């Protein structure tokens, strides 16, 4: 009746960036292409417990204590953020940067999101109990680089492939890693299948490319709850930072599974 007098509905922006390829910058143990907005701080607290094969006697691994990682990441702008993480296993401190090269758009003029990540870490465990001298700072250092390529295929399905490398200056047998090489190559795969508006099934698989270590496998669920993203999962490794994910070794999927969970939260600053 009055429709002829109505305004034509027009979108405000033509090439909109795709929202939420993943629920958070973290996805099980791996980083994602999910960007942070300028001047926001992302905080993640991540845990993995003992193996679940001890059964109820060990409360499915929870009695064995947790490996914990605190991670803070601050976005200097919408494409670049700097982070710091501290993993309890080997008291690892890691500094990292994440840079978003490309962002997928709704109209597919850009079909994928691509991000780069680089990190340097140091093991700060006290090795005073050793016969030989405490390893030097250089010997305790390790580095990581990864390229993350992701696409939201449908409203439900997102996938990311992350070619990664980790380098240990001196993979000392006293470190809590299984590998003895300096260089580790792998591809991390992350998958998300949306179950409902606020929950998704999550997958992680990190096949190693240049060693015989078992591959990392993870399966879990992401739950969004008012600004928090809770991530509950089963995973084959205690490792929480990238170097240890590649060099740390894994149990056999099934019997070697551990429970893990992350809590993600974003804080706006400078307002």
């Amino acid at each position, binding site marked *: 009746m*009055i429709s002829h*007098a*109505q*305004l034509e*509905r*027009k*979108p*405000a*922006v033509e090439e*909109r960036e795709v*929202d*939420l390829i993943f629920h*958070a910058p973290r996805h099980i143990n791996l980083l994602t292409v999910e*960007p*942070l*907005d300028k001047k*926001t701080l992302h905080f993640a607290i991540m845990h993995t417990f003992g193996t679940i094969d001890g059964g109820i006697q060990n409360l499915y691994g929870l009695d064995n204590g947790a490996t914990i990682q605190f991670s803070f990441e601050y976005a200097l702008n*919408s494409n670049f953020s700097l982070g710091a993480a501290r993993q309890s296993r080997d008291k690892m401190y890691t500094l990292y940067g994440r840079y978003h090269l490309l962002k997928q758009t*709704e109209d597919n003029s850009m079909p994928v999101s691509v991000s780069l990540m680089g990190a340097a870490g140091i093991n700060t465990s006290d090795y005073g109990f050793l016969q030989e001298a405490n390893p030097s700072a250089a010997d305790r250092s390790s580095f990581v680089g990864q390229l993350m390529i992701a696409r939201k295929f449908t*409203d439900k399905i997102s996938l990311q492939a992350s070619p990664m490398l980790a380098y240990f200056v001196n993979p000392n047998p006293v470190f809590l890693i299984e590998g003895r090489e300096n260089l580790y190559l792998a591809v991390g795969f992350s998958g998300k299948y949306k179950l409902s*508006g*606020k929950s998704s099934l999550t997958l992680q698989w990190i096949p190693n490319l240049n060693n015989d270590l078992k591959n990392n496998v993870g399966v879990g669920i992401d739950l*969004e*709850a*008012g*600004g928090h993203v809770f991530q509950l999962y089963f995973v084959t490794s205690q490792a929480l930072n990238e170097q240890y994910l590649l060099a740390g070794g894994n149990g056999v999927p099934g019997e070697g599974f551990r429970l893990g969970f992350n809590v993600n939260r*974003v*804080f*706006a600053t400078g*307002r």
Partner: protein
Amino acid sequence: MKPVLLLAAMMLIVCFRGVGQQFLTENGRVEFLSQAPLNEFTGKSANLNGLIDLEKNVLDFYVDLNTLETGIGLRDRHMRENYLETKKYPYAEFTGKINAPPSLSTGQTASVIAKGKFKIHGIEKEIEVPGKLTQLKDGEMQLDASFTVLLGDYKIDIPKVVFYELAEEQVVTIQAILKAKK
């Protein structure tokens, strides 16, 4: 064209120009306020598109919900993807009439009540919105209005675990300066 027809056409044009008291905006401001027990925040957009036609008594407003910003990007994304579902329902719209269209001269303000259909999240409801129209100068009008939206009315679910962060009742405020169509 015969002269008579030409004259008729010219009269029509003149006529419509006289009738066409249309005021338009493309950058009106919309703001919503969510006051939950543990968290209060506002979302803002400056992309309100609007039309007020005082002669035909038509009000038509819409905003692209993708332009709403709460100051936290991740919260915006969750709002778009999980609550407003902007991919399916990109706009909030209001189309209606003013109860008594005022005729204003410069500097005058009139309180008005708009009645019409408000649509968001794919659900349409009849609402009444009290507001104020001010004639700023010749050919320029300001609209101020405020109303509340109950999210439940529009099937925007708030999960139980977040009731303390997101309020069921959202206070929406609109401010727009509309200019006469040339």
